[in-house]
């Protein structure tokens, strides 16, 4: 009889040693089949029973872009960074932002929403929030399809520096997961967390340069707010590499990456420390 897993099994780690806890990430890699099936499950559930189905993934970013462009460009004359069309400028920032906010919101509910599974069978619990975040990659992909069409419409091409995008996005992904892990664990104990996430996301949106550029219009003494906000750093970097053909500001991206990885390690540690109590708290 072939055995896929080691015999000695301690499903719920209660170790306080960070190294031992972080080694749990290997379980996530070993159970990548499960992660895949779980992601598909989320995805299929997401737009089922809706008339437009996956078209919603287009409708949401497109309608937001139109209204925001009207309000902030036509009425308020915010203006883009290097005189590129405002919808294009806006959309390069809006698509990653929508990914961040929807991943954070759905990841926070991932464990609470899988109560029947969590109380019955053991599997690495981080599969649940991770799958919820991965599901939003599909919306992100559709967002970039719209961005592509927008670029065709304005007759521009992505800059040559676009090859930096995967690296920048990997940092973004690590940051989102690092926030989602502790939030979904805390949400089990205190359902207020999901409302808190909603409020914080709204405030965070305005403090992230999606609607406006991160240029000299931001007073120097407030610059630090943007430096410690990985969303701001990364959205600025996306614009540089996709629209302007500049390299990212490596000093700022480096700090963003350190914050992202630090958030991830701390967030995962909190999640694993709380994991043993999940089934008792649902």
């Amino acid at each position: 009889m072939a055995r896929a897993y080691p015999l000695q099994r301690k499903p719920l780690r209660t170790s306080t040693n960070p190294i031992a806890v972080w080694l749990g990430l290997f379980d996530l890699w070993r159970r990548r089949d499960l992660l895949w099936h779980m992601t598909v499950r989320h995805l299929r559930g997401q737009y089922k029973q809706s008339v437009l189905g996956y078209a919603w993934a287009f409708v949401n970013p497109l309608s937001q872009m139109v209204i925001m462009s009207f309000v902030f460009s036509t009425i308020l004359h915010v203006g883009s960074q290097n005189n590129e069309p405002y919808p294009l400028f806006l959309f390069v920032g809006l698509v990653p932002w929508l990914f961040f906010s929807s991943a954070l919101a759905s990841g926070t509910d991932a464990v609470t929403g899988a109560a029947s599974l969590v109380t019955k069978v053991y599997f690495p619990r981080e599969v649940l929030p991770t799958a919820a975040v991965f599901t939003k990659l599909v919306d992100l992909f559709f967002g970039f399809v719209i961005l592509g069409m927008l670029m065709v419409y304005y007759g521009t091409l992505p800059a040559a520096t676009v090859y930096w995008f995967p690296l920048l996005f990997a940092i973004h992904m690590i940051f989102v997961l690092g926030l989602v892990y502790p939030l979904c664990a805390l949400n089990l104990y205190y359902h207020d967390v999901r409302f808190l996430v909603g409020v914080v996301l709204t405030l965070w949106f305005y403090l992230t340069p999606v609607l406006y550029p991160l240029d000299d219009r931001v007073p120097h003494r407030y610059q630090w707010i943007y430096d410690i906000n990985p969303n701001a750093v990364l959205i600025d970097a996306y614009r540089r590499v996709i629209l302007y053909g500049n390299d990212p500001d490596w000093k700022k991206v480096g700090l963003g990456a350190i914050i992202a990885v630090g958030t991830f390690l701390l967030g995962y540690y909190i999640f694993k420390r709380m994991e043993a109590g999940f089934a008792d708290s649902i």
Partner: protein
Amino acid sequence: MRTASDGPEIEFRNVSKSFVLRDSRTLRDLAASLIARRPLGHEFFALQDVSFTVEHGECVGIIGRNGSGKSTALKLIAGVTAPTKGEVLVVGRVSPLIELGAGFHPDLTGRENVHLNASILGMTSKEIEEEFDAIVEFAELQEFIDTPVKRYSSGMYARLGFAVAVHSNPDLLLVDEVLSVGDAFFQTKSLAKMREFKDQGTTIVLVSHSPALVAEFCDRAIWIDHGHKLAEGRADDVVAEYLERIPHGSGVGV
């Protein structure tokens, strides 16, 4: 293949499990209780100082009344909850037949749910491919395998869940009252499948408030009442003692 001499498959060492029953779970209550330094709820012991072992290849029944703590014992074995005190050691791949189809997504088809549920139970994609036809055949759902499971009857639902679990190649099968689902025909078939597992030397832990089933099916039995282990021994003896003490025991028969 492991043999019985490899040591126990399950070992409970002085296991206690308590829950804090909380009346509410808002940050306001948390803040209030932190300030007043009073606990958030009262403690309730589902299991108290329970020790037992289950050897490899044994079939052990856990009996007791509703709320006696037997389902908590099963959850500890399944690894979904951790003991408050003591230690639970479990070896091998556990396949819990607890409330079948818990992981099913109503909008997914039978086929997709088989893949999802099997991977939750720890099967690799390759193993699932190999077992897929056997699973569908056992569940007798060949015609409906591409139908969303929300269109299934409860019997079909349970059949598919059971079929996945028994084909997951478990070292240890946990069974919690599942044999009451499905029609008589499927019950017979399920029992036959469990006998097959037993004969192959798969360890089985059966939780039931049906003493007759435990006496008939299990080698050994453990009686739990109010979180304490009252008796442990040959299934016949323990069941006889149980029936003597609780003359109007609930649910005799499958």
